């Protein structure tokens, strides 16, 4: 063990010294990727570990956002990309070399809130939270919220909705879910990476997941949607949401995994879990994809396949520690088979 560590330090040292002379760079095969920021903490851990274990290969990933990643893939400036919103058929048709979309991990979106007095375990029924984000319920002591929460005393406070100011895969997944469970939300706002939120003094926008998290934390009476990992990290209060079976479920690794287990992956591996069934399922979950070219340099293809294999085996083990949901076994199998298309 000690020896191994020494060796590692020596390699790092050599590389560092080598980098100054650019020797290490030249010897490496670099795989460059860009895209979604939501799985970035997990991906960066994977890529670091993979680069370390695979001699001669370095993986660089830039968390620019899902939209930018897809754009980079179309413009051929990267070797792979990542996206929370998969790709539209129109975008796929723009890539001459063909695209392979592989779901690599999955995440939950939580509703984080800030209520004075540390009110825990807020329950939001499924006809209530779409109305909050549609601007129809504006007070915390609205009778519909009070009725669902007899265990806490809700304050007479306006609800401040915090949304993303930038275009975002998180917004895409969240609005897709709201549109699936509320016809009025679908009709008035719809779904997309950016949507037209209601014009109101009580809708504010902040950049990126961490911006939204900070704004919620600083604003009494705020509610907003963020990735589960960010809420876990900042210990934000998150609401229990009512799922299709009518039960109130908190976001957790277990409730997310149950929700995903019901997903049926079609041949193109693009599946949305808009409204998962099952009494234990957390309602807002989604896969997140890595995007590859079908045709490329054979050596690059070989290492990209290895990268996928690493993510599906070793990588899944670190997923739940970091607030992501490990893929169900049947999904891993399908994705592994599909990765052979990367040639």
């Amino acid at each position, binding site marked *: 063990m000690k020896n191994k560590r020494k060796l590692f330090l020596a390699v790092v040292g050599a590389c560092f010294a080598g980098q100054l002379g650019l020797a290490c760079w030249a010897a490496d095969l670099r795989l460059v990727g860009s895209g979604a920021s939501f799985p970035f903490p997990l991906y960066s851990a994977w890529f670091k570990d993979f680069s370390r274990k695979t001699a001669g290969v370095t993986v660089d990933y830039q968390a*620019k*956002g*899902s*939209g*930018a990643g897809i*754009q980079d893939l179309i413009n051929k400036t990267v070797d792979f990309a990542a996206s929370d919103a998969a790709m539209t058929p129109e975008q796929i048709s723009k890539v001459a070399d063909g695209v392979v979309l592989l779901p690599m991990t999955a995440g939950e979106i939580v509703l984080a809130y800030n209520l004075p007095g540390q009110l825990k375990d807020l329950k939001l029924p499924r006809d209530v939270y779409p109305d909050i984000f549609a601007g129809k319920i504006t007070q915390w002591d609205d009778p519909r919220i009070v009725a669902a929460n007899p265990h806490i005393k809700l304050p007479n406070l*306006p609800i*401040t909705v*915090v949304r993303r*100011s*930038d*275009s*975002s895969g998180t917004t895409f997944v969240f609005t897709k879910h709201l549109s699936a469970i509320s016809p009025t939300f679908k009709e008035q706002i*719809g779904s*997309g*990476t*950016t*949507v*037209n939120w209601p*014009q*109101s*003094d*009580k*809708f*504010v*926008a*902040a*950049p990126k997941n961490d*911006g939204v998290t*900070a*704004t919620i934390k*600083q*604003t*009494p*009476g*705020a509610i907003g949607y963020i990735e589960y990992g960010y809420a876990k990290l900042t210990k934000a209060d998150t609401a229990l949401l009512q799922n299709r079976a009518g039960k109130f479920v908190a976001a957790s690794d277990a409730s997310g995994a149950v929700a995903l287990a019901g997903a049926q992956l079609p041949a193109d591996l693009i599946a949305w879990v808009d409204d998962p069934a099952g009494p234990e399922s957390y309602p807002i979950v989604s896969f997140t994809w890595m995007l590859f070219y079908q045709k490329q340099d054979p050596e690059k293809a070989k290492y990209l396949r290895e990268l996928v294999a690493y993510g599906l085996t070793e990588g899944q083990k670190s997923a739940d520690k970091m607030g992501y949901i490990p893929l169900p076994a049947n999904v891993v199998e399908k994705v592994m088979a599909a990765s052979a298309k990367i040639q």
Partner: protein
Amino acid sequence: MSVSLELPKNSHSLAQAPSVVAYAVNRAFSVVATIGALTIIALVAYILYEIGRQAVPAMQQSGLRFLVDTHWDVQKGSFGILPQIWGTLYSSLLALLIGGFVGVTIAIFLTQGFLPPYLAVSFRTLIEMLAAIPSVVFGLWGIFVVIPFVRPGANWLNEHFGSIPFFSSSLSGPGLLPAVIVLSIMILPTVAAISQDAIGLVPYKIKEAAYGMGTTRWEAILKVIVPTAAVGISSALVLGFGRALGETMALAMLIGNSNQISLSLFSPANTLAALLASNFPEAAQTERQALMYAALVLLAITLIVNVIGTIILVWTSRKMGKV
């Protein structure tokens, strides 16, 4: 143009003709300076051309409706920036009102002998250090300090004077008021430093003459010194306003990024620079063109402000000349 480097033979003057080296250095310097100046002009022209070129499709599609439409809808591909134009001008004007007033007051305070000189110098350095604080730090400070600090007062005003349009909504978190407060602190160093220089340039004789005529200190300051320095002070204000118009990161974090037009100081709003900063990274083709168009509008606004500023400058200096 030929230059003779030789003196008449029978000259007894101590003066010497410039040496060849001095002449060459002089020539070289003027050439380098000319190239530098032309490069800057060319660069500005190129930036304008490049932004304009990329904005052309959006201009053709939206035309002038872009300036009066209030929706930024990526899905429908219809873009309008009236709320952003309003937010940019409103926030910058308010910031100029606060920052300009405080800045000029500080300049008077530091130059007119209210403080011993060593204190005045250290004060000045402190204020100039404000200019070195990164925008993001101002933004974070705004989120964690300014917003909680102004919230109770703002909500009290809204409760008791809610019928006045300026106080017609409550402040929940990000909004115009915190953004304006931070913005006015950000333009303070610019305004204070330049007005200080302007006031410092007023000849001592004029001040003495004023005192000699029996004015009090305040009469001398307000009726003689400040009017004499008015040209410099107004250029300080114009520069401060320009800085406020273009400020990006702190505003993107504090203003709430909400596309609405409201007089209320406590409502979330949006500015052109904040729109560009938050939407650019993930913008696809059509939105990118619209953003380029918005950038062009921001440039135009800045240009117009500068032109108006210059006109005011010329006008005041002419008026001063007549006195």
